[in-house]
């Protein structure tokens, strides 16, 4: 059992849900990456999604686009991120999932990439522009190194397809809650609840909601229907403002003591 599975197993035993923050590596400088990972672990993250900046992030909204531009302007590269994560793996104990568009990986060289992230202690990989039709490009190499390919399903994925996609993974199923790109939104429609019922019904692995999640109300609405949430733009924004108090308070939403109150 890999560390991602272990984390979800442990949460389940405690009847808790996952909180997965996304951060853009290199936003604010790569030298703060390890420190931020430690902070997020301390604030209760189940695992952390580490974004790799890309010049053309078609699945991302303005907040993450801007963070990516800042990171690239800082001279952030995939190579440097992997080097930082290698160092950070000694001080961070929760799983790390790398989120990257395909081209930086393709350019790095797939075998070298898989080898290097395995050495850096990365537990999983999310590649938003790699649908299952194309995953032969690296799925097997990742699997051989014990790295989970985290796959996405969306509101537009038909039920049979969701079944197929979820059956391929062992980590968790990244379930996109909106028809659209990343970014903050105020409300979810009823369609989303129906969608989660459908996904939960067929998925053998934990179902985690992502995209457009930015406040406590939304999280409380969503968690009864899924196994956890991924929060990106909101976290990126709080970190950019260096609002650590705001971050801690926001991340406490799913903590058991909070639920008891």
């Amino acid at each position, binding site marked *: 059992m890999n560390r991602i599975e272990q984390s979800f197993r442990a949460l389940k035993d405690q009847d808790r849900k996952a909180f997965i923050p996304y951060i853009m590596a290199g936003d604010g400088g790569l030298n703060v990456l390890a420190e931020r990972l430690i902070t997020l672990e301390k604030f209760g993250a189940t695992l952390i999604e580490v974004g790799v900046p*890309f*010049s*053309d*992030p*078609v*699945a991302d*909204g303005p907040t993450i*686009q801007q963070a990516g531009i800042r990171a*690239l302007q800082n001279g952030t*590269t*995939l*190579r440097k991120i992997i080097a930082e994560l290698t160092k950070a793996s000694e001080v961070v104990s929760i799983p790390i999932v790398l989120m990257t*568009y*395909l*081209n*930086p*990986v*393709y*350019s*790095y060289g797939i075998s070298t990439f898989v080898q290097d992230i395995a050495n850096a202690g990365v537990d999983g990989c999310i590649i*938003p*522009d*790699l*649908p299952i*039709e*194309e995953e032969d490009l690296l799925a097997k190499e990742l699997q051989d190194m014990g790295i989970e390919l985290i*796959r*996405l*399903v*969306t*509101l*537009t*994925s*038909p039920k049979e*397809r969701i079944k197929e*996609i979820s059956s391929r993974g062992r980590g968790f199923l990244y379930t*996109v809650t909106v*028809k*659209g*790109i990343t970014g903050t939104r105020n409300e979810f429609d009823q369609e989303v609840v129906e969608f989660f019922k459908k996904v939960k019904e067929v998925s053998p692995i934990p179902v985690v909601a992502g995209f457009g999640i930015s406040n406590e109300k939304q999280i409380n609405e969503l968690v009864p229907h899924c196994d956890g949430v991924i929060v990106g733009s909101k976290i990126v924004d709080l970190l950019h403002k260096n609002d650590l108090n705001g971050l801690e308070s926001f991340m406490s939403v799913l903590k058991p003591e909070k639920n008891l109150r």
Partner: protein
Amino acid sequence: MKSYILPNEKGQFGIYGGRFVPETLMKAVLELDEAYQIAKEDPSFQAEIDGYLTEYVGRETPLYYAKNLTKYAGGAQIYLKREDLNHTGAHKINNAIGQALLAVRMGKRKIVAETGAGQHGVATATVCALLNLECIIFMGEEDIKRQALNVFRMELLGAKVVSVTSGSSTLKDAVNEALRYWVEHVEDTHYLLGSVMGPHPFPVMVRDFQSVIGKETKKQFFAQEGKLPEAVVACIGGGSNAIGMFHSFIEDKKVNLYGVEAAGQGTETDFHAASLTKGKPGVLHGALMYLLQDEDGQIIEAHSVSAGLDYPGVGPEHCYLKDSGRAQYHSITDKEALDAFQLLSKLEGIIPALESAHAISFAVKLAAKMKETEHIVVCLSGRGDKDVTAVKERLERESHNE
């Protein structure tokens, strides 16, 4: 028997192409593939397209013997395939008609598109006006400045033009925004992609719609000369007019195929758009293709005097044709294209689009190296009215600096 049957069912031309899109778009992309497969086999669909191409677009376009240009070049005989004479002034409408009719068959009445020079945007807006479809066009802020007249045209035709300010504010960024918009509106909107790029089935579908260029050329050339030309030449941004011209000749191995990329300020500088000459394989906008990128896989902005050619990638089929050696790819600088723009205007009374001027410039050089008994057909993909202001300003600036 046909020996060239690419792409395969995954949309691959060798290693190139494919469907590298977010999961949100997979359903739409698969549905489009299915709908296109069915439509393609339906004679009434082709008849509908042919009807519009004849009566609305004004096909077939002439194959014109450019006597004065031939004399100037001093070698092979040069013919021009006059795609500039299509309604809206470029080859782009061949594809726009086909895709819009397909969208209607699929029950989608909203269209989103990207545009660089504005020619595809104008063609899309035109077809949407004709078929009463809602139309939204994404265009880079930089291109909006360079092509103000085309922006007004699109608006006149009832389209909404959205200015894109992210990235380099050119064609690549307009594609990013159009893709993001499509992700959010995928259920009722068709993305009318303007070139032989993007996820499968776009590269093959756009090729099929554009292949009317080469089909007509082959027939017309044979009627005039009783043989096949020795060479065909076309400019390449994404590569739709070139594939449209090449496709009918791919199995005629004696016909040399030449694609001409934009060398901008020179391929030895950082300011060019020569993806095939200087790029390396990578993934952008749904396809594996040659890409201008840095050593870390970040996409590099392309540069060309012509807004229609400054795209950092190139259609996957061209990548395959390059690797297999079936087609050759060269590049022409901004300066050479501007010279050809003026040359064709003066010699033949035809003002070419700056994009097409790249093909003209290369053809003149090529002709000089060939025999008088040999023939070249150049795809004159568009007319130059849209570029007149920009060229005027540039020439005035240059003469001022001298």
